[in-house]
């Protein structure tokens, strides 16, 4: 290290190591002499350190993803070969399908009502038939146990939730009653219609081009709570 380092020899590498506190004592002394000749160097170094402080203050180095248990369980199921839905995003730049599951209102929804999330694997099936298959029922609240089974008597798949907290009377819950769906065909989307308005399509299950069905919500979430 040159003991009389000219200011113009403080190159990118030296400046970077200086900002990050990685200079040797000898290098520090040489830099100090260079700064004495060119004070702007010192101000730039201080500015870069303040920038680092600003970034560390406002950007997270670690941040749990939304629904962290679901995040992990989804990976574990995937690597164990259990079929899960890989991607349910609608095409192009519109809002993503299922993004609402990770949105800010979902956490209170989960803790208050423990709404089960249903992941429907479409095997060319329709609700109300023997082929209707619920691959997985996920309840984000650990106090809630969710199971599903097919009821011959009801002719429907039943979701059984144990451990739900009572929903306050003042909370408005609206749900669509899906009464009809177009017959599924290989490679074709299946459209579901509202019971009270058969002309109104409210949900589409579309086969993904790769390996799973894709959900697209046309209007509103099935559950709509006044948060």
């Amino acid at each position, binding site marked *: 290290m040159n003991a009389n380092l000219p200011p113009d020899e403080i190159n990118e590498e030296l400046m970077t190591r200086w900002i990050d506190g990685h*200079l*040797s004592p000898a290098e520090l002394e040489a830099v100090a002499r260079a700064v004495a000749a060119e004070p702007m160097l010192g101000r730039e170094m201080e500015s870069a350190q303040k920038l680092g402080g600003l970034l560390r203050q*406002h950007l*997270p180095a670690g941040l749990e993803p939304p629904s962290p248990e679901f995040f992990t369980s989804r990976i574990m199921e995937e690597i164990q070969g259990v079929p899960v839905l890989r991607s349910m995003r609608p095409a192009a730049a519109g*809002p993503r399908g299922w993004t609402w599951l990770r949105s800010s209102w979902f956490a209170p929804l989960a803790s208050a009502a423990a709404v089960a999330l249903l992941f429907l694997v479409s095997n060319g099936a329709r609700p109300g038939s023997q082929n209707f298959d619920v691959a997985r029922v996920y309840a984000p609240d650990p106090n809630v146990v969710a199971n599903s089974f097919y009821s011959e008597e009801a002719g429907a798949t039943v979701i059984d939730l144990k451990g739900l907290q009572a929903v306050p009377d003042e909370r408005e819950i609206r749900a669509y009653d899906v009464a009809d769906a177009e017959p599924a065909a290989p490679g074709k989307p299946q459209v579901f219609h509202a019971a009270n308005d058969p002309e109104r399509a409210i949900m589409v299950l579309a086969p993904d081009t790769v390996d799973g069905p894709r959900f697209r919500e046309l209007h509103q979430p099935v559950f709509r709570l006044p948060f």
Partner: protein
Amino acid sequence: MEAVLTGPMFLDAAPLAMPEVVPPPSDGAPEDAELVRRCQEGRHDAYETLVVRYRGRIYALILNMTGNDADAWDLSQDVFLKAWKALPRFEARSQFFTWLYRIAHNVTYDWLRKRKIGPGTEFDDALGQTPAAGAVTVPQGSTAPDDRLRNKEVGARIAGALKELSPEHRAVVLLKEVDGLSYQEIADSVGCTLGTVMSRLFYARKRLQTLLRDLYEPEN
């Protein structure tokens, strides 16, 4: 490993408060190397421990890179799935977390490239819906409304400035300033030389200083 030389900071600058990248397991869980060995024997439970240990860092890294929480969630999933598939080939020449960061970098970089995101280009239509960086890190219950608003504004400024950088420069400055990686760890994570790391870091800082200086030096 690079030599980290300590000494008195020049010009009485405050010591850098670098976050600890990988704190030792506090729950009695095995170290990464042991968990990796078990994973390579096909032990899923070991991988679950690694996912829980690193999901927050990977998610935050990708969130800072993309600026969108939904994309960060999906891309983080991809990272851990790719890592599991690649684990049989992991030879422990680098630390597990830098190897994982490298997968995260590649996944994110590929995604950004496909989205053709560049300087001055909007990241995502949903960007405005993403919590600003400052709003994420500041507990909402402990700050006054004015402070939260200020944090949100600063977070948006930072996110906008990061968008002005190329993905390569953005990754390097985030890995250094936010994740606290050493130069060598950054080089391992992004797959370049030490010299390239320092060069990218130098220019990324210069650009961000230009864009954000008024936030930390209001007198200027």
